[in-house]
């Protein structure tokens, strides 16, 4: 098992959001987490990535046999936990490619691999950009600065392609995307599905799941998973709502 969450309890700003959540994820699986607004979907994503604003006050999370909660955010990232942000931040003045090189080399260093030099790195990102049909001009712009909503989300998926995580958490990746942008992003995600890579797709709407077809669907409500099923559960929710 890659990820095992047991009875996870998380507080944010003194409010108990997750109240005993259980979830197991195997390599190669895609899990969708659905649920109404405020049910704790994004809290789960942020708690898993180690956001300092979220306090874990119960339960355990094991990642590949190790205690994930004991690791700093950067350590989790280096171990292969990647989160595609719902609202990717802008970092003015920091070149996108430079940022990604720093990230990739941090991860490689952690793994005991040699850091890539500029030439090797450029070759790598060129091939990844091709895979995701990314405009190369985006690489020389500042991180997310002035990007459209669609460009930001694509950039997240692009980073994921370069960093090759073992667990990717997509936090409301579909929010704010029109249908064309959604398709492009979904195609990128699908291209990155692999048997040694798991994904947790957090979404409010079923429509994303038309393009990224999950193996499992979970309904999160009131800080707990109240139902789990196959991909058809998403369709049922779409028809009947969360109640």
């Amino acid at each position: 098992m890659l990820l095992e969450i047991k009875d996870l309890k998380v507080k944010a700003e003194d409010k108990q959001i997750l109240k005993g959540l259980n979830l197991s994820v195997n390599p190669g699986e895609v899990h969708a987490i659905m649920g109404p607004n405020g049910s704790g979907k994004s809290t789960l994503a942020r708690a898993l990535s180690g956001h300092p604003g979220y306090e874990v006050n119960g339960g355990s999370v094991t990642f590949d046999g190790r205690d994930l909660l004991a690791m700093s955010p950067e350590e989790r990232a280096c171990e292969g936990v990647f989160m595609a942000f719902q609202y990717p931040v802008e970092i003015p003045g920091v070149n996108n490619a430079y940022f990604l090189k720093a990230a990739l080399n941090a991860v490689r260093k952690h793994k005991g691999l040699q850091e890539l030099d500029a030439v090797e790195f450029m070759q790598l990102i060129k091939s990844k950009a091709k895979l995701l049909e990314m405009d190369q001009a985006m690489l020389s712009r500042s991180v997310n600065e002035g990007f459209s909503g669609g460009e930001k989300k694509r950039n997240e998926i692009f980073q994921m392609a370069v960093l090759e995580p073992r667990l990717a958490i997509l936090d409301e990746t579909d929010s704010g995307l029109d249908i064309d942008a959604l398709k492009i992003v979904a195609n990128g995600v699908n291209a990155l599905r692999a048997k040694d890579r798991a994904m947790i797709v957090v979404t409010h709407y079923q429509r994303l799941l038309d393009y990224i077809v999950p193996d499992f669907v979970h309904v999160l409500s009131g800080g707990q998973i109240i139902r789990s099923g196959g991909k058809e559960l998403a369709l049922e929710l779409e028809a009947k709502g969360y109640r």
Partner: protein
Amino acid sequence: MSTSTDTIEQLANAEYKYGFTTDVEADTFEPGLNEDVVRRLSAIKHEPEWLLEFRLKAFRAWQKMTEPTWHNLKIEKTDYQALSYYSAPKKKPALKSMDEVDPEVRKTFEKLGIPLIEQQFLAGVAVDAVFDSVSVATTFREKLGQLGIIFCSFSEAVKDHPELVKQYLGSVVPYTDNFYATLNSAVFSDGSFVYIPKGVRCPMELSTYFRINAKNTGQFERTLIVADEGAYVSYLEGCTAPMRDENQLHAAVVELVALDGATIKYSTIQNWYPGDKNGKGGIYNFVTKRGIAHANAKITWTQVETGSAITWKYPSCILQGDNSIGEFYSVATVNNYQQADTGTKMIHLGKNTRSTIVSKGISAGRGQNTYRGAVKIAKNAKGARNYSQCDSLLIGDRCGAHTFPYLEIKNTSAKVEHEASTSKIGEDQIFYCRQRGISSEDAVNMIVSGFCKDVFRELPMEFAVEAQKLLSISLEGSVG
């Protein structure tokens, strides 16, 4: 999210790397300032009568002046009678080669990493090192001499080239200019002098390293650079000081003269001791820097200010000649209890004069950073243009950034643009970087470097690298 604000505070606790003192026997005046001290100072340096006169006129003017209060700084009152106005390493001079320099002094420079050996030629740097008040050694003078370039200590210039010094001293910063410049004019001890002859392009970067060593001495250096018609020179100035509990005063004057078609690039990395994390000690840095650009001349000031408890400086350009150009690129960092009030003045007198101002202020800890800039376009300055950009970056929530741009435009054909922004290194930016595997400290450095990019690219290569390093040292501990 108070935990995350704490992390930001933590990076603010770096130790000052250059805080060592050197034991050298020194000739130091008793504290106090009066006409007699000025005369003694002049006598000890065997100065000509005209220079003593200059000093005395300045001293008399200074006695009637008071410290400016228009700045945005909280300053403890300086007792000017408690300072000593001269300190020189005792085993003094007439040095013929580097080997003759006091070994202790040389060790200090080695710790600072200044290449005082001849190999530095390969690096293309000629250094004039100012240790307390007396210039210790000047390298490569001979090499430069073959091109007619004069690069020596100010005192030597007074002896060897009195006509040039007499002509230009006080021509850009008059002895009545302001409280600190006037004090400097009365008691300046040494500094650097550069003259580039007509049409000569100085083949290497000229560099001066200043260091304040003795206790209770104010350092008052005086730099004068004259680029004759069509000449070119790039000058680098670096500054450090040992750690002391008490505040030390530094009041320098730099004058640049760019004659027709000449170019002067003046780059500074200022890393004086900033005081400890509780705001104790540190250098009070009151500097007057100004250049005059004649027709088609260009003056570029680039500064990276990371040190000093207090920084008060406004490197300025008088664009007197038609088509002359003035530029000011600045990065000023304050951390802990540091305060900076810095900026520039661009005074457009000639036609089609152009100026560019790019100021990047970074505030961390409880630091207070003020940009103060003036753009004046005179009545006859037809077609003058200015572009100003002032950006502030805040780290943490206890620091401050302030911007005071003054515009005075008396010619309707002028084009003046001003852009300003204030941003904060957000916890969300840092978290974003961390989620990608980059540590908080590396994230802050990356964001700060990105913020300063426009200024760093104006610095000569080896200086740019040093600037980047200094910046990350001075912000160490501001995020954890």
